[in-house]
């Protein structure tokens, strides 16, 4: 039975209720080409690296793969060469709150979940999984903005969080003629997952994420390739005054990692909203939920 049928507040949730039970892993000798293929195929941001006994040895993230591309490592390089380890674990019965604290203090985006064998991953908890769980609560809630179908007064909308309250302010951009090297340097220097790509007139024409970069790596594109050649289009966006619940629904429903947030004109981008931002916020999508917010 879904957890949302048994509980109606966010307090007291455990890791077991938000984690994914499918762990995507490769062995230490697997080439980076395979690691990239698994990130694309299984739509994950990191791959666990295990030894022959399925004991966790490390993690390779899209950031690590981007670094390998930047450093010119061959695609045949074994995963063990660039993995970061050992991976951090939590237990299924740990509180979601404690897991989030660990993720924040360690500046990591996921924790692996172990059972009786402390070295063997039985699940994984990542930011999108947490926000997914919160979204399920929000959608079920009688106060949910997602249930409103028009005819409401402004008062009924009060208390619902907007995108601007949760987004990461500021956005980095790059002219579309610049090389992938420049893109990667910008991402790394600012600890970002994506940059906007601008055409000559300054209008945003696309987005380059780490996923686009590691695909370029896999396809053997030289580092001097111009940004426009690999950018994704269109730029998916929302307005800073949009309701957070609707923005989250858009991302979950359409498989979008982030929305570029506009103020006034759609072309005036002032921030980025990702599922990770929403998860770090540790609450549902309206102030009614703050009382039952996961303790900060």
């Amino acid at each position: 039975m879904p957890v949302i049928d048994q509980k109606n507040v966010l307090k007291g949730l455990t890791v077991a209720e938000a984690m994914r039970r499918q762990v995507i892993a490769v062995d230490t000798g697997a080439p980076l080409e395979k690691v990239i293929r698994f990130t694309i195929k299984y739509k994950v941001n990191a791959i666990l690296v295990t030894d022959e006994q399925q004991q966790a040895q490390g993690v390779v993230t899209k950031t690590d793969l981007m670094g390998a591309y930047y450093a010119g490592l061959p695609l045949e390089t074994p995963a063990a060469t660039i993995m970061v380890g050992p991976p951090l674990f939590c237990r299924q019965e740990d509180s979601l709150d404690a897991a989030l604290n660990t993720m924040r203090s360690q500046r990591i985006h996921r924790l692996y979940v172990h059972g009786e064998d402390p070295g063997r991953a039985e699940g994984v908890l990542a930011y999108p999984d947490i926000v997914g769980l919160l979204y399920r609560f929000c959608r079920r809630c009688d106060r949910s903005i997602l249930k409103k179908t028009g005819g409401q007064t402004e008062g009924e909308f009060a208390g619902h969080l907007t995108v601007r309250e949760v987004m990461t302010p500021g956005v980095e951009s790059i002219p579309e003629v610049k090389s992938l090297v420049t893109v990667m340097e910008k991402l790394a220097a600012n600890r970002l997952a994506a940059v906007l790509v601008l055409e000559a007139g300054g209008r945003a024409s696309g987005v380059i994420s780490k996923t686009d970069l590691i695909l370029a790596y896999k396809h053997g594109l030289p580092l001097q390739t111009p940004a426009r050649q690999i950018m994704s289009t269109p730029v998916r966006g929302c307005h800073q005054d949009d309701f957070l619940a609707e923005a989250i629904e858009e991302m979950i429903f359409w498989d979008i990692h982030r929305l570029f947030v506009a103020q006034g004109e759609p072309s005036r981008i002032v921030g980025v909203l990702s599922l990770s931002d929403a998860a770090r916020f540790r609450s549902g999508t309206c102030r009614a939920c703050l009382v039952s917010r996961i303790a900060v």
Partner: protein
Amino acid sequence: MSEMARDVMDTRFHTLNPRMTVAEAVGIFEQASEESGRRVFGMLVVDCDGRLVGMLSVYDIFLLLRPKHTHIWGEMADLDLHGLLQAACDRARPVLVGDIMTTDLITITPDTHLLLIIDIMIKKHVRRLPVLDQGRVVGIVYLSRVFDYLLARLGG
């Protein structure tokens, strides 16, 4: 009667190239099904030198099409899902075969015994096995062909 892979393998089969797009691969799946008179659910992927580098099955394509968060919105019966399949298809079309193919392959030779083939299919949950002769792909054994062959023997 030799009862080996060579007795049940198909020696005429289409292959894919790792640099083809998924959209192009789907076209070849259709062509292969039409020409062989039965639905083809998986194909071998060979490089420009004819070397086997992977296999693409419908499950690989399903994985690509499957949205990441289906476990969240899958329980919400009142969601309007209009446009979702189209969006998934649009995203999948330009992806290359080499980006999603399976490379952990189990191969057999023309002299692999039928009972060993059955054993591999049971243990590894595979429905097709590439047949290599000195490193070159010479055929493919489909579960359906093995079944047809065994039915004839069992019945006789």
